[in-house]
């Protein structure tokens, strides 16, 4: 009796929601085909994937490709390049929009505020190809503006994009330039939600603007900051592929070759699918561990977390 009653209820609900479910269908198909099917496709990292045999008929090889990757001479350099680039980005590009939001919050002239905001959103809409093109032409040792001014000021021209030491600063600076204004929007929204009475009370207690920022503004922004920080920690290993790919060249691979560009090269250019997929899965799992750890720590030391 019970199962029948339950399935009847299910049928009734199904009938009631049939249009909603139908509307959900394209979205569901998209997620199953383009997001979940690749997850199951990761099984090729445990197989010796053969183009002609297909995923299921290819022979199992266990952890062979993981062992190859962990033992390869590239492994340490790739991992450290990726982590260093990710951490440098986290250290400089994450606080940048918070600082900009705080600065904008101090501005009382609406015109200035609006002008700065409008202009600083702009680079966010420019493609990575354009940004990379701009970086490379501006920094060109022979014709670039930057070196032109360095020469005018009496310095030696620097060949920025063929010296490994310059890659990380250039990359992180270009990231900040591109996204700082846009990312500020979220923090500004958090700022407008702060109760003005708190500031009034602080002023009566004799707090200057600096103390107000420290004791009211920042604590009130904390939930937003923490949540975005957790998301960013998850991205440490998952740095935007496009721009690194566009900026890097073999001359600076010692700092600029990261896991995703390596996966592209090994997997798609050389057709080593199984090996590349094992690196993909390895990175994805570490990223997941990062997010869980960051979320766990955030929940432990503050009340704010993603879940």
């Amino acid at each position, binding site marked *: 009796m019970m199962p029948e009653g339950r399935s009847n209820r299910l049928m009734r609900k199904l009938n009631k929601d049939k249009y909603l479910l139908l509307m959900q269908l394209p979205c569901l198909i998209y997620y199953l085909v383009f997001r979940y099917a*690749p997850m199951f496709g990761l099984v090729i990292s445990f197989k010796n994937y053969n183009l002609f045999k297909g995923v299921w008929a290819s022979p199992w090889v266990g952890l062979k490709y993981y062992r190859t990757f962990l033992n390869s001479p590239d492994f340490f350099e790739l991992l450290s390049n990726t982590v260093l680039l990710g951490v440098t980005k986290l250290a400089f590009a994450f606080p940048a929009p918070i600082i900009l939001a705080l600065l904008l919050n101090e501005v009382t002239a609406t015109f200035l505020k609006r002008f700065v905001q409008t202009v600083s959103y702009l680079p966010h809409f420019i*493609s990575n190809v354009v940004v990379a093109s701009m970086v490379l032409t501006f920094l060109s040792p022979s014709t670039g503006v930057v070196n032109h001014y360095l020469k005018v000021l009496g310095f030696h021209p620097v060949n920025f994009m063929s010296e490994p030491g310059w890659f990380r600063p250039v990359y992180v600076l270009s990231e900040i330039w591109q996204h700082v204004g846009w990312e500020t929007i979220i923090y500004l929204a958090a700022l407008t939600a702060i109760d003005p009475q708190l500031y009034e009370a602080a002023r009566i207690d004799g707090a200057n603007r600096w103390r107000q920022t420290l004791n009211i503004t920042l604590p009130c922004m904390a939930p937003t900051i923490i949540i975005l920080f957790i998301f960013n920690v998850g991205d440490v290993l998952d740095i935007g592929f496009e721009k690194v790919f566009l900026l890097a060249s073999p001359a600076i691979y010692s700092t600029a070759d990261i896991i995703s560009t390596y996966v592209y090269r090994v997997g798609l250019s050389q057709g080593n699918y199984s090996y590349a997929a094992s690196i993909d899965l390895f990175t994805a799992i570490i990223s997941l561990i990062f997010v869980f750890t960051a979320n766990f720590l955030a929940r432990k030391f503050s009340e704010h977390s993603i879940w």
Partner: protein
Amino acid sequence: MKKPQFSFMSLAIGLVLLLLAASMIYPFLYMLAVSLSGDKYVIKGAVTLIPKGLNTKVYRIVLDDPRIFTAYRNTILYVFVGTAISLAATSLGAYALSKKNMLFHTAFTYLIVFTMFFGGGMIPTFLVVRGLGLVDSIWGMVLPTAISTWNLIIMRTFFAGFPSELEESGKIDGLNDFQVFYYLVMPVTKAIFATIGLFYAVGIWNNFYSALLYLRSQEHFPLQVVLRNIILAGQVRSSNVTSVGGDQLVVEESLKYAVIMVSTLPILLVYPFLQKYFVKGAMIGSVKG
């Protein structure tokens, strides 16, 4: 007593912000100025903000380049088809997801949110796309990135705020969920459609990743690929550019800037009009981010 210190601080902050704004906008003005200047001024490095020896020679070369023409046409096609597909799938899915009492609501939500933290990665995704026969066609540019989870969540949040009384009255009048969505919800929430549509359109216009992975033949290349080939891979001289006189190296610089300007112009031109929509979208997204 605090007044002088306060105004000094304001002045310093104002200056910092103005400098920042200048660093955002100057590169574009500089590229525009160089691309519109005469060769000899570019060679001397005399161009800073205002074009010298105004001429549009490099733009004529760029626009005459058949690669640019094809790429422009492809990009516009991808943007129109892709935005239509993305917007339809996202808005329908988001509306259904905004109904908390829908069957399987929680399961679908988890299914979608999980993809924000874990994915198959480049290679397995490529194998799926290739397995479906989408490689080297417009569908490879449009389908694999059709739904952005972020946009889906923004729209869902927005639809969840739609007054349910209105929908119930529609239901009483005999409309089904789809008709409620089409006749009642859509007309009222036009702004969110515009916003998310713009997000998708800009994303497709700028999409280089899909083209790099899934496109093979030149005839399908969008602007971003051609831009990269011309500027980063140094294939400036295609057919008719060789005839340009003067210091080739420096002329290349103006040419590159002209190519950048031509491929970015649509966004630079519409941006001031669309900015408020973008910001609204980002704000809605941040509320429940």
